[in-house]
């Protein structure tokens, strides 16, 4: 009890913070399921060579267009059936997760880095630099999105690498805008002014005092952007200008299953479900992250949630007893 009475604010242990977060996530069922599903999909992508029953490119003419196991003529060798070349759909879905997650993660990292740097420079420097940089952002935001991507990809030649580059240079603007607006407001805060009066170099101010404010908004934005990238990659791959065979991608598989929708609905259904599950679970998880990292939303939730009451009660009870 003695430590509770001291006037010094306690610094909670890291493990305790993590434990608290996990318990909060557990109590937000939608967020928890989202997290679980996205963790499973990530594990599936990482372990693809070991868990996929077949080589995703291995063709088997004898077993073409086999239906999934629960339909008549389906068998356990190909749980989700086979495609027009006799390739195992389950294996292709598992491997497809790799391209999707790889492209999504790389684009968010690259575009995020570009956007954060531009936003920091624009917000911190202000004046003419800010004007020019933000004008570039405004102009590029008005570009005709996917059409432009298609034109660029068709000239450069489609591949996974081209995809990453093109999506990165067409999606960095939103980070720059958000970072700039936060930097502009944080710059006015006394501790930043104090640091600059004390003679801190701009670099130190930016990285030491301003950047930490950006972490949680950028986290939420990055997670949400990830879903946009997944959908964009799927669309471009579906049009045949994204990931190229023999590599696999869910969008690509839907495109190749398209010619067989009259006789083999499973060819488009399962890769598409992969996309839906990924995007949906990330959306659910992102919603939890947004609410958890936003102090105002947290307060609302703190007032309502049972988990919060459980955390507050013991302290209050003790105070009353004393």
């Amino acid at each position, binding site marked *: 009890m003695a430590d509770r009475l001291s006037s010094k604010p306690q610094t909670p242990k890291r493990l305790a913070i993590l434990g608290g977060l996990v318990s909060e996530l557990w109590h937000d069922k939608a967020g928890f399921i989202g997290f679980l599903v996205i963790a499973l999909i990530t594990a599936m992508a990482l372990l693809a060579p070991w868990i996929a029953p077949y080589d995703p490119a291995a063709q088997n003419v004898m077993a073409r267009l086999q239906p999934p196991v629960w339909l008549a003529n389906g068998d356990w060798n190909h749980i989700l059936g086979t495609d027009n070349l006799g390739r195992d759909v389950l294996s292709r879905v598992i491997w497809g997760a790799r391209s999707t997650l790889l492209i999504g993660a790389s684009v968010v990292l690259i575009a995020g880095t570009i956007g954060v740097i531009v936003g920091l420079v624009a917000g911190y420097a202000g004046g003419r630099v800010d004007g020019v940089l933000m004008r570039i952002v405004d102009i590029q935001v008005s570009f005709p*999105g996917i059409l432009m991507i298609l034109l*660029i990809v*068709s*000239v450069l030649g489609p591949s996974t690498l081209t995809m990453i580059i093109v999506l990165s240079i067409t999606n960095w603007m939103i980070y720059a805008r958000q970072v700039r607006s936060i930097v502009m407001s944080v710059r006015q805060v006394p501790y930043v002014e104090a640091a600059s009066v004390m003679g801190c170099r701009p670099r130190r101010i930016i990285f030491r005092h301003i950047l930490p404010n950006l972490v949680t908004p950028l986290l939420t934005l990055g997670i949400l952007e990830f879903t946009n990238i997944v959908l964009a990659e799927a*669309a471009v791959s579906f049009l045949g200008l994204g990931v190229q065979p023999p590599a696999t991608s869910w969008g690509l598989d839907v495109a190749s299953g398209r010619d067989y*929708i009259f006789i083999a609905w499973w060819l488009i259904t399962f890769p598409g479900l992969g996309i839906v599950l990924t*995007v*949906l679970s990330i959306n*659910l998880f992102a919603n939890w992250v947004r609410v958890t990292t936003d102090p105002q939303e947290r307060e609302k939730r703190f007032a309502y949630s049972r988990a919060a009451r459980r955390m507050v009660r013991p302290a209050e009870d003790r105070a009353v007893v004393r």
Partner: protein
Amino acid sequence: MGSFIVCRLWHGLLVVLGVSFTVFAVTRLFGDPVSLMLPLSASAEQRMAFAQEIGLDQPLFVQFIRFLGDLATFDFGESLWQRRPAIEVVFERLPLTLMLIGTGLGFAILLSIPLGMIAALRPGGFLDRFIVSAGLLGLSMPQFWVGLLLIVVFSVQLKLLPTSGMGTPLHLVLPALTLALTPLARLTMLVRSSMIDELNQHYVRTVRAKGLPFTRILRVHTLRNILISYMTLAGWELITTLAGYTVVVETVFAWPGLGLTAVQAIQRGDLFLMQAIVFVIALLIVLINIVLDIVFKMIDPRINLN
């Protein structure tokens, strides 16, 4: 107002210049138009002649000026695929795309306001949770996949609607529904969240306390207040649809609009036609942005967009 419009026009001009510069840089610096557009079997003389014809022997600066001049006069060269001026093809296909977008977005707009309001009336209730879940699902589904599933269900299984192409009004149903999906989900979510915020405002409590009928509160007070943010998002949906979603949806349903034409142009290496499409769409987007800004300024004089 005059200086405001001039400012928007200037910004629009910069956007058009930016698009032109990017297209020029991508096609002339990173790519080789000659090998893109001529078949592999073309002889060296043919390649030289073609390069000279499109001015590749000139210095880059001269090429860029000529490129801008061509764009300004809407002279995009001849479509290799259709053997006629590219701009003709664009203007022939554009109305079909606009028809598709008009139907789809119109549907999304008509439905999103009542749906969002129903959800907002009782947040956390059954209807609200249903609408929010459906919206989240709608935002998570890729449009090409939804389109294909709709074809499987309504055309292949139930045989109610045609699979693809155009002709009768029935041909428009599935593509328009597919196109409407994402905008409908996003707009409904926006109406819901801004309605909830608005209904919690103190003025709503005041007017309710003084006995105003609830429908009048919605019509006169809250709906007007969410109008600006709604129109901003609706305009943005129009732009993203025009610039991208139509390509996917038209490809799925073989709807012969500008999006399908773009994909076909790429498949046939028809760079000139592709350039014309990108440029015309960019111009349209600029125009839409200007009109929207002016409308916003007219309905809400507080807005200062300079």
